[in-house]
């Protein structure tokens, strides 16, 4: 028997889960300390809700282990787990009133009646719903139903409270109020909260720790400040807050080139002339009238007042578009100077520099990859069935409106704007990812046909 660290109330070890062919969770491991407020953050379909459901016991992981308070709960049914869930759409029992909803779990545990009365009153007070005991749950507003749902879950005195996008159905004002109340409730109860949301602002406001997920994998785990200031990849940078994400080259240690200029930075150890992603937050670009003192110049394209600051889009001297936030307004068409300080430049390894597929030669001029046969330039002494590696530049993938005309079909899954082009993630119908650089404007979810010209398919033999 392994020694388990008793500080961790929840340990998820190497959890994987698929529905049919679709991989929902891919080797996810998480440790949560007792009393922490942990948020699992990610876009819809990233696997965050599935992860929460596995934790609650609604379904079992294909592989991996779930430990709660040091004990193995991987195969324990939901009613025997010391966790309780607040569901997204409340899931209050419509045939029971507020009191009976909250007392439901306690009655099952055969808690004596006067004890139940006490607990119900206590939790109702906690969610500021005293006097609502006898009300029909369907007569309550959305916000009130959500409070009852929270009260019902904490009445059972769980070790861990799971919250599945509990505020998603509320309007903005209500959501802000409930965020503050949840935070206070967490402090008062002293139990662990695991909170699932797609709202980055909510995550930054509430959490001690944020777990950013995408495509069934953990992208980054850290405090809100860490995640905001030092995103580990372009997905996190794009998903959390506003940011300028740009292609760059690490010229040498502490010197990085992007938007056509070289900048001093504080990062080292990338090697020389290494391709990198660069993130600069819009509030970290200093915008000045004096062109001489600036690192580079730009022309203001648009300027919008956002309440506290102005949001401006500028075209730089080398033709890149940047977003800038500043307390001062600059009129469109105005020439401005821009300065970025070394500490505000976040340099990240590129996850990939071109599309790479495993393929198989069909004949001398055809290669099969992504379950589809493509024409390629004649390959000297290529044998049919020979395994090869296929590389395609991001900018050499053609996307077309008429899906019937494409060799492959897919949909636009994710979009990052990189200053002068878009970097798209396309998910093909067969479930493969292709990354595409394009200046055409696509929207998330658009159906596209995919073509690759024979000359743009680079074939590398595996044994070389």
């Amino acid at each position, binding site marked *: 028997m392994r020694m388990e660290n008793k500080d961790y109330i929840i340990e998820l070890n190497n959890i994987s889960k698929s529905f049919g062919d679709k991989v929902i969770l891919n080797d996810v491991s998480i440790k949560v300390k007792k009393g922490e407020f942990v948020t699992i953050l990610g876009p819809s379909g990233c696997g965050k809700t599935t992860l929460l459901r596995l934790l*609650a*016991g609604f379904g079992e992981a294909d592989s991996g282990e779930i430990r709660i308070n040091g004990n193995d709960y991987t195969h324990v*049914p939901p*009613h025997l787990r010391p966790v*309780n869930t607040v569901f997204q759409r409340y*899931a209050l*029992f419509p045939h029971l009133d507020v009191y009976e909803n909250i007392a*439901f779990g306690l009655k099952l545990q055969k808690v004596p009646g006067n004890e139940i009365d006490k607990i119900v009153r206590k939790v109702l007070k906690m969610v500021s719903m005293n006097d609502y005991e006898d009300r029909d749950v369907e007569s309550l507003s959305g916000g009130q139903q959500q409070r009852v749902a929270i009260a*019902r*879950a904490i009445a059972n005195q769980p070790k861990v409270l799971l919250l599945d996008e509990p505020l998603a159905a509320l309007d903005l004002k209500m959501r802000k109020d409930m965020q503050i109340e949840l935070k206070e409730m967490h402090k008062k109860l002293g139990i662990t909260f695991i909170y699932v949301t797609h709202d980055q602002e909510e995550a930054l406001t509430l959490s001690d720790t944020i777990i950013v997920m995408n495509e069934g994998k953990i992208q980054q785990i850290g405090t809100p400040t860490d995640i905001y200031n030092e995103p580990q990849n372009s997905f996190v940078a794009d998903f959390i807050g506003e940011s300028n994400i740009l292609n760059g080259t690490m010229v040498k240690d502490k010197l990085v080139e992007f938007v056509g200029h070289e900048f001093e930075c504080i990062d080292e150890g990338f090697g020389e002339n290494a391709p990198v992603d660069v993130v600069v937050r819009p509030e970290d670009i200093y915008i000045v009238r004096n062109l001489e003192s600036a690192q580079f110049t730009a022309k203001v394209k648009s300027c919008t007042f956002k309440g506290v600051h102005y949001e401006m889009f500028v075209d730089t001297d080398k033709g890149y578009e940047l977003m800038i936030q500043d307390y001062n307004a600059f009129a469109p068409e105005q020439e401005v100077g821009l300065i970025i300080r070394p500490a505000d430049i976040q340099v990240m390894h590129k996850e990939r520099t071109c599309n790479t597929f495993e393929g198989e030669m069909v004949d001398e001029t055809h290669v099969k990859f992504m379950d589809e046969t493509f024409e390629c330039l004649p390959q000297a002494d290529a044998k049919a069935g020979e395994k090869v590696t296929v590389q395609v530049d991001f900018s050499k993938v053609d996307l077309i409106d008429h899906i019937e005309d494409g060799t492959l079909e897919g949909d636009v899954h994710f979009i990052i704007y990189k200053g002068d082009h878009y970097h798209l993630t396309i998910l093909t119908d067969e479930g493969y990812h292709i990354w595409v650089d394009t200046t055409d404007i696509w929207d998330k979810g658009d159906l596209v046909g995919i073509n690759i010209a024979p000359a743009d398919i680079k074939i590398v033999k595996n044994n070389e």
Partner: protein
Amino acid sequence: MKRFFAQCYIWLLLVVLYAPIVFIAIFSFTESKVLGNWTGFSTKLYTNLFTGDMQGSGALVSAIENTILIALVAATVATILGTVAAIGIHNMRGKGKQAINFLNNIPILNPDIITGVSLFLLFVFLHISQGYATVILAHITLCTPYVVLNVLPKLTQMNPNIYEAALDLGATPYQALRKVLMPLLKPGMISGFILAFTMSLDDFAITFFTRGTVGLDTLSTYIYTDARKGGLTPELRPLITLMFVGVLVLLIVINIRAMRNAKNNAR
């Protein structure tokens, strides 16, 4: 003016629609053997009906008993079978679900005569002697689809997390079923049962083909044979009248309760 004509049209339709029933009701209060021949006010037909003091009274009384008994058994079995089936169907996906829904719709879409003939041929084919059991089986076939169609929407309207919420709060699957699922399905089961019961009460063709030759009569088949023998047994007039009044009272009660509920909810 337009309103007035519209109003008149509705009332005219209603008058025409109710004329035969009112006509029967009026002539239930006279002793005459022939309809339309008023021989003075009398409640003799009613007393006859209740005391069974008439020609072939035994047959009519046993037909009424059969009708109610068959409807009760068929509706009860259909409600249980249909509710369990609806829970199963709700949790199915894809082709299997489509196939069941298709089969489930057949007894509803099929004319009663086809359902009756097809079941008759089935019993002939399997050499099953026909009587009470086959009639009840046939009525269950007719009724269950209506129960399924009444319970399924309750399942789809239900918040999909409701059952999980019960488990989450510590209920075993059986407790969750009994304390959460069943109470929520109850309205669907009740309306399904009522519909099944009335379908069975009202049925003629299916009973006609599946009752065999043992002399089993329900009210419908009794009336059919009776009418073909020439003329309605006079005692059927008070029966029709009473049934109509019964349905009327039932509907009024249901409506008043529904209105009260609506008011309560509005409060």
